[in-house]
């Protein structure tokens, strides 16, 4: 999958099981909130950078992008804390947030989507007890990703069709004349897709009982 945030590198961090990495992330979050001091947050940030840039050999840009996106928010947060409380609490809050976001980004960048999906399926396994079918998660993923380009294409088609009949409506009218019909078309398509899936053996019960639609 080309659009994923995974960064392929042959590193020990990449090879760690996804479940272990997720547990580490959760443990880090618990630690940062249980021991709210700048020293702990600072050490955690250094640790995260060592793991991410050192052990996992991620490009600096991958993490810098995350930090950069937060820059104004972190600045405002620091100022608010400095004015209403003190500089130490400001520094600590900013460090804690930055650390968590970066650590999460490290996990995402070092773990393939397919491995994450396996964790999701594992987590969904208890659903079996209540009649759920966690193995359908893969099908749901596939369909959702497949629908994205179809959806964009249909939206363009509706826009073009309306342009051909004298310009696309704007504002509130567009909701009723463009968005709603698009959604109806898409629901119909989803229905057709489900028929096609059933025709290829997706379900084991009749889709419609007599009298149903």
């Amino acid at each position, binding site marked *: *999958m080309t659009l994923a945030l995974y960064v392929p590198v042959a590193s020990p961090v990449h090879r760690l099981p996804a479940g272990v990495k997720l547990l580490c992330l959760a443990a880090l979050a618990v630690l940062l909130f249980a021991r709210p001091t700048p020293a702990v947050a600072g050490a955690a940030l250094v640790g995260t950078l060592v793991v991410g840039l050192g052990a996992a050999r991620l490009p600096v840009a991958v993490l810098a992008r995350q930090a950069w996106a937060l820059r104004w928010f972190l600045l405002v947060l620091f100022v608010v804390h400095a004015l209403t409380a003190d500089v130490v609490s400001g520094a600590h809050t900013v460090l804690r947030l930055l650390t968590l976001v970066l650590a999460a980004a490290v996990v995402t960048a070092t773990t393939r989507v397919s491995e994450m999906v396996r964790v999701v399926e594992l987590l969904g396994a208890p659903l079996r007890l209540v009649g759920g079918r966690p193995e359908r998660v893969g099908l749901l993923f596939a369909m959702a990703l497949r629908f994205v380009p179809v959806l964009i294409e249909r939206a363009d088609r509706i826009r073009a069709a309306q342009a051909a009949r004298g310009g696309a409506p704007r504002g509130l009218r567009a909701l009723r004349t463009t968005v709603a019909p698009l959604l109806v078309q898409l629901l119909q398509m989803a229905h*057709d897709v489900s*028929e096609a899936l059933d025709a290829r053996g997706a379900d084991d019960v009749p889709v419609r009982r007599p009298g149903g*639609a």
Partner: protein
Amino acid sequence: MRFRRSPAATADTDVAEPGRGIELRGVGHRYGDRVVLEGIDLQLTEPRVGVIGANGSGKSTFARLLNGLVLPTQGQVLVDGLDTRTQVRAVRRRVGFVFQDPDAQIVHPTVAEDVAYGLENQGVPPDERAARVAEALERYGLAGHADHPAHLLSGGQKQLLAIAGVLVMQPARVVFDEPTTLLDLVNARRVAELIAGLEQQVVVVTHHLDLLDGFDRVLVVDGGRVVEDAPPGPAVAAYRTLAERR
């Protein structure tokens, strides 16, 4: 009489009788108050069966009855003696279904994954699955596209992919619902040739009358009833007369 059991279908097809073909007994279908089909009694055993009729005549519902996508509200549909209402899984394994719009049929992001989908449902082991997918891609001219995103294929390629995804499951019969309606002349011809070359029994619902050349039997559906049941020549003539009377 041949009595070949498809290996994947053994679980619930103990009573299948392949010689009987597709039978419709007193079949009717309605959505709420609207009658879509009524009074249909047919036995389809011919290798090539065509279904023609105006838009809204009930053709698509007819096609969907044949593999249990739609269940009759009246009467019975039997495929090789299996009732679509009680043995829908077994029926669907015997009857493949190709839709008009391939976009509605392709559910996986890449070509090979999509072809493999039906085989996964049948529980075909991974090695055999990979081999059959590769063979199907080769046969339908998609070998170079195995890992391509499905949405980047052309309309004609998408329909070939949809067909490959159905035929890879080796159904005993295949229903096509307007398979060439959205295709240009070249691709329509390609699909027509592909259909002509199939070993399976084929039921084709279509507006492209030349698709029916060499067919054994053609049904004309009008107002929810089968109004003509004949070889292609007379059936198409009857359909033309019907259209002119409108």
